[in-house]
């Protein structure tokens, strides 16, 4: 399978809120980030959690977010601090408002 995004691409995490086992942290939903790395395809954990095989596999990305983007200034962090998380491809949309930073 081919990956939809590449390192440096700007993405937005979907704001969906489905029931059940989900690996996308709530605090990152709707936030704008940048793809730092691609970790390749993995069985979909949202299916694995219910005893299913996890097909089709989903590409797992390392997505970086500025702390200000996530917390809007209310936290104990410095200007350049960031948070990175592994997010599966079906949770990401291209951020068309921003240019690729690669």
């Amino acid at each position, binding site marked *: 399978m081919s990956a939809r995004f590449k390192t440096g691409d700007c993405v937005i995490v979907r704001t969906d809120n489905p029931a059940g086992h989900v690996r996308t*942290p709530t*605090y990152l939903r709707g936030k704008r980030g940048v793809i730092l790395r691609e970790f390749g395809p993995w069985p979909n*954990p949202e299916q694995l959690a219910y005893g299913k095989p996890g097909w089709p596999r989903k590409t*797992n990305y390392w997505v970086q977010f500025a702390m200000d983007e996530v917390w809007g200034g209310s936290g*104990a*962090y410095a200007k350049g601090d960031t948070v990175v998380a*592994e997010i599966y491809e079906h949770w990401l949309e291209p951020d068309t408002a921003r240019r690729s930073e690669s």
Partner: protein
Amino acid sequence: MTHDDHSHDGHGHDHAHEHGHDHPHDHGPFQPDIKEPSEDWEFLEIALRELMIEKEIITAREIQDKIEEWDGKCPEMGARVVAKAWFDPDFKARLLADGNAGVGELGLEVPGLKLVVLENTPKLHHMIVCTLCSCYPRPILGLPPLWYKSREYRSRAVREPRAVLAEFGTDLPDTVEVRVVDSTADCRFLVLPVRPEGTSTWSEEQLATLVTRDSMIGTSIAKSPIRIA
């Protein structure tokens, strides 16, 4: 402990308190005993375990062997990896490129997961958390410390990392990017801390003594040789 805590009223058991004396004042044990199972999942685990043993699917010895296997894994294993990476630049390059293959050179395995080794530098400090549960590079560091699994650490690390770091005694200048790594999926992350200054003549074995568990989680930095000497 309050009198109410000590009172067993309403707890559904009826044994008399036998303290070897009969005055009714409040004095519990200095440290409470490990509590009896009370949660649904605890009963489920006991029932499942006993059934599997009874049906000869698994033996108590096999369960104990597994517990001992996990108890045998410890941060010293990760410290060997870090010390070798400090000592041998070629090994470090291989380790950063492919964590699983890198630790494999030391006979360590991280089965079924992608091990990603993250190098801290004077400009970048990684700090690992799992906000969803307690993902941790157990095959390399052993079982995580209790605080790593606490709601407090998991919620605060991503929002106030500088405050959390300060509580661990780790004060970093604002010129260093603190990169909080939320371990949400199939990777496991191991921090390669900055090699302390004043160790250029140290052997790999000596270097390993400077590598702490927390420095590989990223809540701390490696020990200073000056403080040790």
